């Protein structure tokens, strides 16, 4: 299923995941974390991985030029 719209949506999702990862790494975001203060590197790494997966999926969804 290839579509520019889906590719754009997945790219935006990837950027959102990067922002969330940064917020967890800086200790700003404490959502669902085991402690209520300090940085949460485990969560940050997870969202970096999710961001990479989103960008990869976006590239797969992007319409390809016919060769």
């Amino acid at each position, binding site marked *: 299923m290839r579509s520019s719209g889906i590719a754009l949506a997945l790219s935006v999702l990837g950027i959102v995941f990067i922002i969330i990862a940064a917020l967890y790494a800086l200790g700003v975001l404490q959502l*669902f974390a*085991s402690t209520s203060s300090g940085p949460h*590197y*485990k*969560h940050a*790494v*997870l969202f970096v*991985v*999710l961001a990479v*997966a989103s*960008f*990869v999926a976006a*590239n*797969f*969804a*992007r319409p*390809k030029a016919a060769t």
Partner: protein
Amino acid sequence: MGLLQGASELFPVSSLGHAVIVPSLLHWGFKQSDPSFVPFLVLLHIGTASALLVLYRDQWVTIIRGFISAALRGQIKTDAERLSMLLLVGTLPAAVLGVYLETRIKTLFASPYVAAGFLVVNGLLMLGFEELRRRRERGATRAEQESQFGEAERISFRAAALVGACQALAFIPGISRSGVTIGGGLLAGLRHQEAARFSFLLATPVILGAGVVEVPGLFARGVPVAEYVAGAVLSGIAAYASARFLLRYFRSGRLDPYGFYCVAAGLVSLALLHFNL
């Protein structure tokens, strides 16, 4: 503990279940609630993951190259590229569930009684997976029966995600990560040996990732790092030997013996714990 964890991590018998039950039965002096126990388990897991990386070193090089080329191209062209994407899809659900639920689930179920009970459940699951598999098999010999089923690269992306999500069940002490993923692979149409290979490849980034993010805890005061590293080396050796054995065993072997072992070990453990022997 290193030998026990390394061997039981890859055998479909639940390493976490054994890590909870055996020290309790043998009256060893440490508990999971002890702050120094987490760094110890972390190092043991890194030892196990390192063994898997060594065992599949050539495949991992191919998989990583395949991932990069497929990701940049936005298209899958080779089996290695497909396998790399299957592993990504299979790893994500376990990673998300692991980060958000692992501690809560382990805290909820960290009791030798519960672990022994779920070990029985794990055994019944193994026997159930094999029973469902037998219904789809044709042929007189094991070779003929296995030949109808496929390789890890041919599994569907939906099945890979489901098998990967099943890994989260292993946060419950007594439920085996390799057991549920091998069983899931069998239901998805893989040969036994291929289901084991997919399970081990799927486990490597999860085990390694879970270990590496906990490494800073090793530098806390009072952690006997040298002893823990020795445990990790033993864990790696046991895991390597276990993986080699299992891959050979699953050429024609089934999950049944491990299913019976888990049911028996769970019931015996429950009895021993109940009578405080």
